[in-house]
């Protein structure tokens, strides 16, 4: 569905992309991760034809977007990170304009627009001017406009950015429901739990380079063998006890508050060592809970070294 080959882009002397390559398969729910300034939005802007790469190619549906951009965009639904509409026009008029650009005939245009507005829960606001909508409703309209052409590929850049928890949840559920229709998703997000809930494939970029590409579950398995996280509950935890744990070689204290201490260690034996040390210090250990690694740990491990 998407093939990116050796993509490079510089802004003046700053190299935003240093030759990234990856592929996204048909029907895949793909996450594109990276810290701020890693090059995610630059990659997406090149994919959409807003920026021209210094070198490299982007192919979508088997076609080079620098030559067949207009043709390719007929099958793509796009939601940018910074979304802007024609604020003085109504919700319906904005949708109608985008539908016209896809050449959708008048009767069908009205039907499709109403259906999609209903799907995203905006049908009762269709006569409202866009400037009267809240951020959450604008984001829904953003998703609505991305569906107007019944796309085969959705490219979403931070779709829940700036939304309250309820709106974020609703948008995530909406995206999940869209995926059931077999559409391919290219999702750029910094919310790792969101990505873990929606996507199966992932590419992680950092400082303009691709760090990892694979299935989320495979990446988690990969680091599972390296590090173990455990949450230890100690009834009389104090600063002295925490300091003594910090001094154990190969142990990293991630967090400590109230009666719990979150640690990262190489293996279970190390966790047992921590337990012994705590008991020796007079600590009353009541519980040791192992935590499975998640995408956040994968992400931090892969991008942390370069900090």
């Amino acid at each position: 569905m998407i093939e990116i080959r050796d993509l490079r882009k510089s802004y003046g002397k700053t190299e935003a992309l240093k030759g990234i390559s990856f592929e996204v398969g048909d029907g895949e729910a793909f996450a594109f991760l990276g810290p701020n300034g890693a090059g995610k939005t630059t990659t997406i802007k090149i994919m959409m034809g807003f920026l021209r790469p210094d070198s490299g190619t982007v192919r979508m549906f088997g076609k080079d977007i620098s030559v067949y951009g207009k043709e390719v965009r007929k099958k793509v639904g796009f939601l940018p990170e910074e979304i802007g509409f024609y604020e003085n026009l109504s919700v319906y008029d904005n949708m109608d304009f985008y539908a016209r650009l896809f050449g959708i005939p008048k009767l069908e245009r009205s039907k499709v627009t109403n259906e999609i507005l209903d799907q995203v829960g905006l049908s009762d606001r269709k006569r409202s001017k866009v400037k009267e909508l809240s951020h959450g409703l604008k984001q829904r309209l953003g998703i609505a406009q991305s569906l107007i052409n019944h796309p085969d590929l959705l490219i979403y850049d931070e779709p829940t950015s700036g939304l309250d928890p309820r709106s974020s949840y609703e948008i995530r559920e909406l995206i999940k429901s869209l995926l059931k229709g077999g559409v391919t998703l290219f999702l750029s997000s910094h919310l790792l739990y969101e990505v873990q809930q929606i996507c199966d494939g992932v590419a992680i970029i950092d400082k303009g380079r691709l760090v990892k590409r694979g299935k989320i579950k495979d990446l988690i398995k990969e680091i599972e063998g390296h590090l173990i996280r455990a949450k230890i509950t100690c009834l009389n935890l104090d600063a002295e006890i925490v300091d003594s744990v910090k001094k154990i070689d190969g142990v990293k204290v991630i967090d400590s508050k109230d009666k719990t201490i979150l640690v990262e260690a190489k293996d279970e034996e190390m966790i047992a060592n921590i337990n012994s040390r705590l008991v020796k210090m007079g600590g009353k250990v009541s519980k040791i809970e192992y935590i499975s690694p998640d995408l956040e740990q994968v992400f931090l491990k892969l991008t942390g070294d370069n900090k």
Partner: protein
Amino acid sequence: MKVSPLLIWEVSRKEIYELIKTKRFVIFFVLYALIFLLCVWLSCYLNPHLTKEHFLGVMKNIHSIIYIFYAILPIVLSYDLITKERVTKSIYLFLSKPVSREEVVLGKFLGVIIAVLLILLPVLTIGLIIFSAYNGIPYLSDTAKFYLHSLVLLLVCSCYISLSLLFSVLVRSSLTSLILSLLGGWWGLEMVYPLLSMYSLYNKIPSDSWYMKVAFAVSPLNNFRSTLEMLTAGHNNNFPITMEESLVALLIFLIVTLILSLFAFRKKDIV
């Protein structure tokens, strides 16, 4: 460059729809209508000896008085055609649709031309009606000439629209685009000929030299004044170029600025 006329129309349709809802459109419509129609009424009211034979002469005089409008009006309606899309970020959704950048530029250009026409045509027609009410209906040939000259007027406005569109493509801020369009596009081009005329006085450069002609022809408003002779079929020796040369100059100005806009927007990175 392969463009779809249908998509150009869809873009221009949206542009007109958006533009006619703006305050500046309403303000300039009312202002132009008031000034033009007041001039027509005053001409008729203050000159009881006017007859329908004087129709074109009266219209020529009014156009020569308010000619600055034909630069300011198109500039005010078009200085932010692209910059506004970039500032409000609506350009990302716009360009993510199957529309080429050429279609965007041409659609926006056409949209403002139609918006300008929506202002000019009713006002000029009401002016004709007011004149007819006082002095009788002008000859058909004069009326035809009047409307034919309105096409030249539209061509002049198109030149300024195209120039503002070019600045709007090149710069990031709407204010910069407005300043460049007004100062550079209108006032700057207007100043070339008088400055060179002053220079030629002291350096004994013949007034009919080719560069004096070019200095005059670079300003669409100069060409507009020159083409006003079309209305009375006279020849004004004050202008260094003929009416026909002015028409050619206007067309060249329009084509060059429009091609530059198309080329610049095509190459532009939308950051």
